[in-house]
Structures are given as C-alpha cells and as structure tokens.
C-alpha cells in the first residue's frame, strides 16, 4: 500500500491487531504456558493449592498475584515433581524404555507398505502405460499392510498399551478418526454424485433436507441426547425390535456396539458438510471434460476415477485434514460425551471403550482433579496437533495472501 512508515505505521498496525493479540495472549498463550508449567508439578486433588513463596508459581498463578492474594489458600501446596518429567513418564509408560521404543518402531514399520504403494502409484502415473490399475495396487498394498500389522504391529501395540492409559486412548481416537472420516466423506460423495445429475427429480428438495442435520449439529448436545434415547435399553430401536419379536442388545453397554453407535451419530452430524463441500467442487468441473471422455468411450467408473476425483481433490483434501484434526475428528468431545460419556466402563481406573482423547482429558481434570497429569497430557497432544496443523497448512497453502 502507500508508503507510510516508522512509528506511525507501527502504531496503526498495533491499533488494528492489538485487541486480537491481547485476547490470544490471555486466553490462548497463557493457558498453554500454564499447562506446560503445571505439567512439571504434582498438582492433584491432594495438593490443589499454589505455593506462592515459589517465584515462578507466584508469577503464573492468578491467585498469587498481589491484587487477588487474599483469596488464595496456602494449605497443602503443590510442588515440583521429582524427577521433573515424572508426569510424562507416567503417561507414556514403557515408551521411555528400550522395549517401548522398539514397539514404537514396530508400529511405524506397519506404515511402510502404504508409503511404498503411494510411491509405486506415483511412478506409474508418470509412465505412459499402466501395467496394473491404481485400485489393484491399493488393494494389494492394504492387504500387505493388514498382514504386517497382524504380525508385527499388534503385539507391539499390546506392549505399548500394557501399563499406560495414554496409548489406549490415543490409539482409540486415531481408530475413531480413521473410521469416521472415510465413512462421512464416502456418504457425502455418493450423495453429491447422485444429486449432481440432471435426471434426478426433486434435487432442490433433497439438498434442502440434507441441510437439516447440519443446522442441528450446532446444537450437538441436544441432538446427541435424542440419539442416545434411540439407543437406550428401552429406547426407540429396541421397542421397534420388540414389536417384531426380537430382543435388542443393550446398545450402549456393549463396548464394540457403543463405538459403532458413536460413529453412526457422528455420520449424521457430519455428512451434510462433506456433501456440500463435494457438491460445490463437483459443480465447478466443466462439462466438456465429460463430453470429451464420452467421445473416447470412457465408462462411468473411468470418468469418476480419472476426472471427477482428481478435480475435486484440491477442494476436499484440506477440508478432510481440517475436520480430521478438529472438533469432528481427533478433538471430538460433545457428541460422544452426551451419548456415552466415555463409557461403557471396562473396570475402575481403565478408560471406557468410547473414551477419546478429549473425554479422557476432561475426566482427568474435572472428575479426578489430576491437573498436573492432564497438563502433561495436554502438552503432548498439543505438540501432535501443532505438527498436524502446520502440515495441513502446507497442504492448503492458505497463508498465501492475494498479492504475493
């Protein structure tokens, strides 16, 4: 823009972004700093109060600040852990030992076939002819991955999970994301493909109907409770089954079924968004692409694989990545909380079968008062999500301004 510079420019920019920075500082940076600090202490239900005589504590704890001092309790103060990283080693269990590291390497090995497939497919894409189609390569590769996982990955994961809730919860969350994301997008894609064809009657009606779960998803707590009612012991589904003479299972008390119910409800909340993103991308594909393919005698399947999917990729992949690491995926909380609250329980002190990362953290903080442990947990999860966010930025290239 126009050349104004020096102090005046700095003041102007500060005036524009100052309030945002202040807010971020207070409600984002401060909590992160606080969590990092608290993760090195032993703050829990037995040591809930800050020790204001410690200099670092007196800076970081609001209740130690001079103007609020009278409200702070000094009985049973918390102190630093010995060794300092004890919370982390409690969480990560065997990971910090040689057997744990070996197990982790074994888990990583399971992903090698997938990388090989991607490379093989890339190589074939550059060639003029393809000896085998991409789908066959993928199926073969997934098969190999499954076998490798069964032989190496599974025992390694058992080792990792043996004495640590952390890995159980994280693996389960990753499983949740790996299952829900494709399901949501496959349903969205199928709907978008059907509703993007001209010969279907009532397309406007169907499109409008598909908005409704999306609108309801802003009030996910209420609708999740309704879904929970469907799957209760004497809920709608079991009543229907009773009428035709079947005794339905206790849906939310069976670990596997409860997990499936959560995935189904998440589908209800998520598929309209996927559908709308994909439909928007489909409508931007020029029709002459398909006309040319028709002339060359391409089948519907070939057109889908070689025209439709590659062309909607740029719009869909960022949305998939963002929702996978966001509140609809890795950070899923509300829906699952309202339906199962992390249960069904598998015994005292063991995470329930739908206890995802955020639910585990919530329970640690608000039910067990294990602030320090939850702080360490938060730091580890944050590092993971931080890296994933930077990676997704690389994919979406959203940082590019208009005039750069």
């Amino acid at each position, binding site marked *: 823009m126009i050349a104004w510079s020096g102090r005046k420019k700095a003041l102007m920019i500060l005036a524009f972004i100052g309030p945002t920075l202040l807010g971020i500082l207070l409600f984002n940076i401060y*909590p992160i700093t606080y969590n990092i600090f608290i993760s090195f202490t032993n703050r829990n239900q037995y040591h809930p109060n800050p020790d204001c005589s410690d200099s670092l504590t007196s800076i970081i704890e609001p209740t130690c600040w001079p103007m609020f001092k009278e409200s702070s309790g000094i009985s049973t103060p918390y102190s630093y852990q010995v060794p300092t990283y004890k919370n982390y080693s409690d969480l990560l269990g065997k990971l910090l030992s040689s057997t744990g590291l070996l197990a982790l390497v074994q888990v990583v090995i399971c992903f090698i076939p997938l990388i090989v497939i991607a490379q093989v497919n890339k190589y074939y894409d550059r060639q003029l002819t393809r000896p085998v189609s991409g789908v066959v390569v993928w199926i073969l590769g997934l098969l190999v991955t499954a076998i490798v996982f069964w032989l190496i990955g599974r025992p390694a994961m058992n080792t990792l999970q043996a004495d640590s809730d952390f890995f159980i919860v994280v693996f389960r969350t990753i499983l949740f994301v790996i299952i829900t994301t494709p399901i949501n997008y496959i349903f969205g894609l199928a709907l978008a493909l059907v509703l993007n064809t001209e010969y279907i009657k009532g397309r406007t009606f169907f499109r409008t109907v598909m908005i409704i779960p999306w609108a309801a998803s802003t009030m996910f707590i209420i609708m999740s409770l309704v879904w929970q009612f469907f799957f209760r012991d004497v809920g709608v589904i079991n009543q229907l089954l009773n009428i035709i003479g079947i005794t339905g299972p206790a849906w939310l008390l069976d670990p596997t079924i409860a997990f499936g119910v959560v995935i189904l409800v998440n589908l209800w909340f998520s598929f309209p968004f996927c559908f709308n993103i994909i439909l928007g991308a489909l409508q931007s594909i020029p029709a002459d692409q398909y006309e040319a393919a028709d002339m060359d005698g391409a089948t519907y399947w070939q057109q889908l694989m070689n025209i439709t999917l590659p062309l909607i990729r740029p719009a869909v992949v960022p949305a998939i990545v963002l929702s996978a690491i966001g509140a609809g995926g890795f950070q899923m909380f509300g829906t699952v909380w309202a339906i199962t609250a992390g249960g069904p329980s598998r015994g005292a002190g063991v995470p329930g079968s739908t206890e995802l990362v955020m639910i585990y953290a919530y329970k640690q903080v608000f039910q067990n008062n294990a602030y320090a442990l939850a702080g360490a947990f938060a730091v580890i999860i944050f590092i993971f999500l931080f890296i994933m966010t930077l990676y997704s930025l690389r994919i*979406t290239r959203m940082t590019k301004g208009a005039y750069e």
Partner: protein
Amino acid sequence: MSRRPKTLVLVFQYAFLVVMTLFSLYPIWFVILASGRVGQRLYTLNLLGMFIPTSFTFDNFQIMLAGEPHPFLSWMRNSAVVAGLTTISCLLVATSAAFAFSRFRFYGRSAGLILLLAIQAFPGVLSLVPVAQLLTAFGLYANLWGLVLAYVVGNLVFTTWLLKGYFDTIPIEIEEAAMIDGCGPIQSFLLIGIPMAKPALAVTALLAFMGGWGEFVFASVLIPAPNIKRTLMVGMYSIANNQSVPWGLFAAGAVMTIIPVMIVYLYFQRYLIGGLTLGGVKG
C-alpha cells in the same frame, strides 16, 4: 454423465436418496412427535406413534414456557445474550485484525497468521482450568461476561482467517485509488473494506452466533450455578442427564431451540455454503 442411466441404476439412486432423507429427518421428526406427548409416555409407545402424531398436546410447551420446574426462558435469554455479545465483540475485534493481516505488510505478518492457527491447535477442554482461574482472578467466574470473553477469543482465530480470506479477494485497486485521493488506512478500512466485506461479515456473524448458542463445555464449567444463570445447552443437558428424564419437556425444549435455528440455516443456505468455501477451505 448426462446420459440417461439404466432403470436399475435409477431405482438404486432414488432408494439411496430416500434412505438418506429418512436418516436426516427422522431424529428431528421424532423430537417433534415426542414434544406433543405428556411426561414419560415415550416408554409405552405404539408402533404407529413413532412415525405419525397419534395425539398431540401443547402442555409440554406451556410447562417449559411457564418456567417451572425449569427456567427455560431464562436459559434462552442467557444464551441469546451470550451469543449476541459474542458475535458483536468478535466482529469488532476480528474484522480490523483481518483487514490488517490482508492489507498491511509488516514484519512477522505471515508468521503471526500461522502462529494464530497453530496456537488454536491447543485443545480447548484442556485450557479450561487456567481460563477459569484467570476469570476468577478478574472476578468474572460464574458470570455471563466471563463466558462471552472466553467465546470471543475462542472464535477469534477462525473469524480472522475467514475474513482475511475474503478481504484478499477484494481488489486492492479501489483502495489504491482512494489513497491517491488522500484516504488513510482507517478510512479505507471503514469506508471501503467493511462495506465490501458485508457478505463475509454476515456469514461470520451467523457462525459466531451459532457457535455461542450451541457451545456446551465452556458454558458448563464457567457457569456452574445457579440454575437460572445457566445457558440453554447446559440447562437442556441437565434435564436429560437424570435417571428419570421428563422426555416430553425435554423434547418441547429441544423443538423450541432447534426449529428457529433450522429456519435461519435454510434461509441462509447458499450464503453459508459460499461462506465456507470463501474462507480458504478451497485449495
């Protein structure tokens, strides 16, 4: 793709559409049916009563609106106040930041944008304890204003990014022409930037309002008591989270909460879809 398909394919496509329509609509339809029945009678439904309204009364709505035993209208007012204040403050704060990030070139600009997004990766649930402590220190704990403050910052990053994406699409030539005529950055923001960004502002406002209206975790922790100061979602959750749930009342409350939102969504449908893609979700 425009060729007419075989009849069998067509049948499958319509069947799929019908199944998905039922899947989308039935939960909402069920809530509407349940809101017309009295008390616990959900547990003794007949088959027909699950699909069509065999009997319908407005008793549940009357009880909910009367405020006894659940102060529904107070919850609704709290939620509306919180969501409304969140929307206004969020727009005030985020629009100027977004404009600055889009138009000005300064040291640390793109690093700041990335930092904003990366910091957002910190899970909200886990920042609740420090946020609650901070609000306690400011005397804003168990106070609607404290909740508004937390929501505004929670929405800030998303809003800034969305609006920045939109400002980027507005041609800068207009502002350059205005600058030659002697227009400073503040005028160009107030007189050109904001009026040009109206569609994006509308979408942002709607999303921010809905975010505040439906948020649950922060509201449940930051306003623990008394019942009358709770927000709608926390209140509704407290109704349903009992051993014997007054389902009729819950359903009536749910209908009154959800139907207005649905109408707004249906009305703003095309802007919403446009708004999501303009905010840079598109690659």
